[in-house]
């Protein structure tokens, strides 16, 4: 019994470590600078999608933003459509999950 448990634990650890390797390998971090062409905050306020127009390629990319600090900046209009953004996002399950979403401008 005890042996079985250890074996099970060992398998679990092995499996977990496998995942630990697999997830970062499949996720891809992308960096871009782009201008917000469309910004929509979800009705519950817990997420938002921003369409960024890549300043290099002109391509439009839809970014999912879920961190509270950035959402708050959308709500009180510190970040609005037309602002240029430095963005780092992770491609996960077909979504572009924002990791860094900051205005390029300052003073």
């Amino acid at each position, binding site marked *: 019994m005890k042996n079985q448990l250890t074996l099970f634990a060992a398998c679990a650890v092995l499996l977990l470590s496998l995942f630990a390797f697999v997830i970062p390998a499949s996720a891809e971090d992308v960096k871009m600078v782009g201008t917000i062409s469309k910004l929509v905050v979800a009705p519950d306020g817990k997420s938002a999608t921003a369409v960024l127009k890549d300043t290099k390629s002109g391509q439009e990319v839809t970014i999912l933003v879920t961190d509270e600090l950035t959402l708050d900046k959308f709500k009180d209009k510190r970040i609005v459509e037309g602002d240029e953004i430095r963005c780092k996002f992770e491609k996960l399950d077909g979504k572009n999950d924002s990791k860094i979403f900051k205005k390029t*401008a300052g*003073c």
Partner: protein
Amino acid sequence: MIKTRLAATALFCALLATTATAKDHPGDESIKSGGYHGPETCEECHPGTARKFLDTVHWKHASKVTNVEGLDPGKEYGMKNRIYVMCNGNDIVNNLKEIPKSPDTGKTKFTGCNTCHPGNHLSDVGSSGPEAEKAIDCLICHSAEYDFSSRKPFKDAKGRVVMGQDRSTKSALTVGRPKVKNCMACHEAAGGGVVVKRGFAFTKETDVHAAKGMVCVDCHRAQDHKIATGLDPNNWANDGTLISCADAACHGAKPHKDPDLNRHAAKVACQTCHIPRTGGAFAKDFTEWEKGSDGFYEPTTLRKEANDTTPVYAWYNGTVANSAHFIGPKGNRSDAKSRITPFKIFQGKAYFEEKSGELLSMDFAPPMANGDTRAGVESASRTLGMKNPAQVAQKAVTGWQTIYFGSNHLVTKTKALFCANCHAPNGVLRFKELGYTDQEVVKLTNPDLYMKKLAERQREEW
């Protein structure tokens, strides 16, 4: 005993904090019925506040400065008039204005250092009198729901450049103690972008105090709007009150159970162990600007996120070396007031006057429109009344200035430096450069110093 007292204080503070946020501002009823008309609305119940505000660093962007070499003790210094290479402009030479049209797009925009001033620009940095009192943007620091789309420069009917404010009654109905985001409205994007200047983010991931729900003003306490600060070598203007981690009201001089750690505090600043990383811009070139996607130019800037870079360590006694090519800490090993302190190191390239070698400042309007940086120097020289500005700009030579910025946020407990982070041969401190003799370095890098303690810790952890 001390511990229980500490815990009790913490609990008391937490309670205070929750009651403070739960309770409505007693002025709400009155503001709701009469509407918000700027500071005079607040003055009904907080008389004299606006007048006193005009005498603070936040209004004047300047103060007398006593700890920096080479300054006139009778004059005031600050972002209003300083020249250094993080900004290379100031409120005077880079006054808020509409810049020339971009030749590419035919568009213009507003820019200037005094966008980070809580006035309306008509009443500008350091102004005084009744008009200035009426112009203060109380809500930028006190409203929980400030609408930032109102805080934009525009031209009024007379063609004057005005800095907009949110003066809505709705926002005035959310008045309270300043929150992190109120302070960060200006402090976050200083130096030309988020995190650029100071390299810190104040979030639960990046700072133990933020993780505990603390806000800026829990440490930066204020009396009559004079906000307490520290001795960052590059933050000269101050309101005369100082704060430090070792203040009795905060941690005191002996905060650790481990006497080995407490002993170090005499020679090693708290920040050295507790702020092992820094971030933000580490180099900028004001002589070559880069064209952005909107057709406007910005100084070429190498930037990193918070915690992306390592600090530089130096002895610091609170007094500051100040020359055309270096702004940073003074101090040394044998000076009892000096401690080894971490700094965010930054280097900036700019123009220096050909003959005197003095650093020159820049008006950003010309280079922003067309990349002509010498035209920016010429305009600034003209504003400052220098003789023959065109020639000053033409003959100016390029060079670098190095700045040591204070590194006082991004505090960590779990990643604090421990014995081997410094005493191993590849530790973060360069003992030799810090003034220790070869023999002392051998002792300071001998594992005997930490072997027992780290072995014990390893046993506990595993």
